[in-house]
């Protein structure tokens, strides 16, 4: 049992306020005595590093890419939610909180989600002050749009590049701290271990990806902002370098991994085209505001979409969910697309796609209006598929996009290891079993700008600690472990490439731990993953050497971790005997074929503890207590 989530007492709306008061403070003059490591420079990492640097701490900020500006937050298209109620359509902090909790199918912590909704407003203010060029109306006020799963227009956006603009805002704040000397950036570094001294996280070991050097960095606390693990599926909308390694190495050191099976599968991606495909491209779900999803009524109908008359089309989302229609949450849209394709109604060469049709919207609003809203997305679609979505419907299919699971954290966003924080997608905290659109950016920035800067102070002020430097024996041990792993991978000299293994792993996860899961499939997946893992460690071929820029070696380490993580994901999925949000177990469905939750037994956070290579992980449980919302069956009908 895991009960110490450190959620403060008192009414929901006052918790964060009260908690901030109760947290101890570090005297401004003393802050320069503390070193903090932040791993990752996405929205969460960059905003945390910038804010902590601004407070006066010495921050070391690590990223895997050549520049902090490249983190994958940059690819978020649609927007960022905030309960500003600028649209005067009935939004409020409470409504954003409720939508998020309900959207997550009641598998998130109330207090965290409420805090997120509260902070959402400050985020927009902060970003505008930094010069983020959000969309405006002609009077100069900020514009909003509605987004999947919400009936109010609370999403702030910057064309189809909101993530880019927000990240560049956070990046510029970060670079400002770099210029003052409070933050030092370590680019092209991959964190390979967290170093624990006397039960507290006191540093990291990282590999310099250019020189291959294994470096040690000591600090008073470590913040992981290392993103999600969607790339375990090989094909996902994540960037190529997104990986679980940092989080997973923390897990190996004793940090709990929560809800690893909660994987969001985004409904609107460009379908797979061939075996050499390296990744999938997302089409913002804002497209569903105007596009209508349909398939032919008759299975196997191979006519061109233009030739299928209106009466022979099935606008299945509008038919099944009349009040939300095409705007149902992501999990619902994805599951339905798969269901249609499974019935043989899928379109395109592979039969693994449904139409997203703009013909009606273009007729209603004119091509110019649609172009202004989605021009860049349409262009991107045409670039990739060579088809013009103004003339023929887009073809879309679900793809792995975001992972709600992640390192377990308490209300302070600290893992069960003292001094090790996890923020952004890397933690599990705010999205439950399904994340609503435009909420990831909100969470990343809330954690980085407005949560960790306070809770970090609280931790440091109430945990006096000795100075530790990298000559400590714990660092030696970590360095040795890491370099041993590097040499092990290089010495296998097998016959298969890292990518070949990764692709096979991805297929197992997609087939058995994807949109729909069942016990038999999960059992098989576990066996298959274990066999694949064995094979990997016997037959992988990693060319080059460890003392060089070696992208295959980087990948090999990541894939090795993905293999172990995949086992954990499947174990978690198997354990959760219910359907909720993204986790649909075919055995647990309502009469309407909707996910059937088991609130009596599974209104919990399932957290797992590492017990050694090849051993079953140990199960911990945090009960979710809902004092403010009634657990209802999600219905978008």
């Amino acid at each position, binding site marked *: 049992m895991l009960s110490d989530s450190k959620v403060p007492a008192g009414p929901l709306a006052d918790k964060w306020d009260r908690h901030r008061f109760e947290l101890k403070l570090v005297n401004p003059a003393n802050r320069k005595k503390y070193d903090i490591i932040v791993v990752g420079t996405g929205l969460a990492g960059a905003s945390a590093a910038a804010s902590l640097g601004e407070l006066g701490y010495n921050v070391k900020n690590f990223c895997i890419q050549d520049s902090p500006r490249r983190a994958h937050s940059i690819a978020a298209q649609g927007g960022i939610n905030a309960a500003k109620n600028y649209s005067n359509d009935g939004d409020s902090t409470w409504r954003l909180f409720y939508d998020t909790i309900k959207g997550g199918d009641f598998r998130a912590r109330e207090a965290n989600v409420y805090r997120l909704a509260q902070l959402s407003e400050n985020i927009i*203010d902060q970003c505008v002050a*930094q010069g983020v060029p959000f969309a405006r109306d002609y009077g100069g006020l900020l514009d909003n749009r509605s987004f999947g799963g919400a009936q109010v227009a609370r999403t702030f956006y910057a064309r189809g590049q909101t993530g880019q603009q927000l990240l560049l805002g956070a990046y510029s704040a970060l670079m*400002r701290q770099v210029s003052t000397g409070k933050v030092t950036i370590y680019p092209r570094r991959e964190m390979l271990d967290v170093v624990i001294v006397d039960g507290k996280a006191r540093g990291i070991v990282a590999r310099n990806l250019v020189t291959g050097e294994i470096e040690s960095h000591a600090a008073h606390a470590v913040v992981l902002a290392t993103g999600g693990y969607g790339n375990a599926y090989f094909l996902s909308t994540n960037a190529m370098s997104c990986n679980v390694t940092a989080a997973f190495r923390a897990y190996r050191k004793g940090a709990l991994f929560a809800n690893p099976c909660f994987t969001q599968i985004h409904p609107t991606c460009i379908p797979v085209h061939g075996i050499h495909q390296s990744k999938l491209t997302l089409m913002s779900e804002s497209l569903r505001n105007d596009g209508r999803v349909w398939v032919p009524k008759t299975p196997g109908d191979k006519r061109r979409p233009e030739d299928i008359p209106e009466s022979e089309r099935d606008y299945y989302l509008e038919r099944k969910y009349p009040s939300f229609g095409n705007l149902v949450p992501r999990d619902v849209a994805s599951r339905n697309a798969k269901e249609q394709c499974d019935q043989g109604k899928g379109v395109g060469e592979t039969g693994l796609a449904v139409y997203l049709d703009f013909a009606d919207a273009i007729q209603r609003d004119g091509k110019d209006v649609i172009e202004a809203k989605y021009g860049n997305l349409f262009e991107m679609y045409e670039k990739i598929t060579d088809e013009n979505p103004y003339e023929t419907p887009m073809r879309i299919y679900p793809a792995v996009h975001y992972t709600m699971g992640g390192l377990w954290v308490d209300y302070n966003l600290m893992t069960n290891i003292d001094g090790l924080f996890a923020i952004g997608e890397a933690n599990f905290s705010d999205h439950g079993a399904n994340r609503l659109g435009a909420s990831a950016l909100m969470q990343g920035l809330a954690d980085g700008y407005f949560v960790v800067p306070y809770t970090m102070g609280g931790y440091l002020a109430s945990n006096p600690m000795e100075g530790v430097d990298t000559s400590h024996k714990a660092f030696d041990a970590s360095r040795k472990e890491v370099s041993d792993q590097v040499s092990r991978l290089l010495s296998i000299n097998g016959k298969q490439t890292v990518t070949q293994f990764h692709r096979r792993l991805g297929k197992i996860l997609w087939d058995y731990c994807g949109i729909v899961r069942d016990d038999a499939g999960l059992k098989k997946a576990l066996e298959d993953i274990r066999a694949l893992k064995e094979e990997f460690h016997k037959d992988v071929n990693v060319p080059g050497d460890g003392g060089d820029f070696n992208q295959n070696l980087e990948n090999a380490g990541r894939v090795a971790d993905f293999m172990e993580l995949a086992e954990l994901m499947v174990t978690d999925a198997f354990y959760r005997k219910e359907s909720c949000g993204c986790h649909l177990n075919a055995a647990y469905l309502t009469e309407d074929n909707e996910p059937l939750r088991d609130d009596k037994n599974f209104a919990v956070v399932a957290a797992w503890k590492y017990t050694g290579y090849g051993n079953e992980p140990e199960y911990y449980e945090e009960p979710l207590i809902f004092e403010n919302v009634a657990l209802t069956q999600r219905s978008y009908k």
Partner: protein
Amino acid sequence: MSTKTITLTLKVWRQNRSRKKGGFEIYTARDISTDMSFLEMLDVVNEDLVLSGKEPIAFDHDCREGICGMCGAVVDGQAHGPLKETTLCQLHMRHFKNGDTVVIEPWRARAFPVVKDLVVDRSAFDKIIAAGGYISAKTGGAQDANNILVGKEVADKAFNAAACIGCGACVAACPNASAMLFVGAKISHLGLLPQGRPEAKTRVQSMIRAMDRLGFGNCSNETECEAQCPKSISIREIARMNREFVKASFS
């Protein structure tokens, strides 16, 4: 989508990390589907190299959606290849013909030293941003977002400049290896917005000086940067920077 396969000859720049000099190696990219992206084509070549016991070609890439700015190489003499407004990861093989010979080189600029093969070090861009490419807005100190009015036209203009992905294609494409489009875009983005005005003067001064120190060339208005920029950032951003510089220097 009509899929077919093509075979290409690649002339790729290979350069060891430890050595100052590199050279071209020739590879054959066989049975490449025209629906693949350029980087997926390189993936295929690399898989073959690994399986035949050779070291794969190092190249930077990440999002493969044309937004992170990580990828880029000069393909047949053009930054990000022949297709306009397209990053290398979004360049698809349908734009090549069976039997083509394709020459692939890294960005070449003194300010962007080669790390390995097609990978270059672009940290000079981060240094320019650190010199002033920001608005000093303290976390938590912001007023309500709607208190600052920004007309749609101005917001759109600022966005056009802010769309820069920092890939470095402008430097690679410029016959003088100048970074003025990159710098101009950031100065325009921040300078157009009312939030950015208070620091406009110091920003342009220090960013330009940082750019000069880092060894980039000068602009001679060849406009190749604009022509090869994957986000079609306009040279008007450079003009705006010049204007800001004149204002800042003589007032």
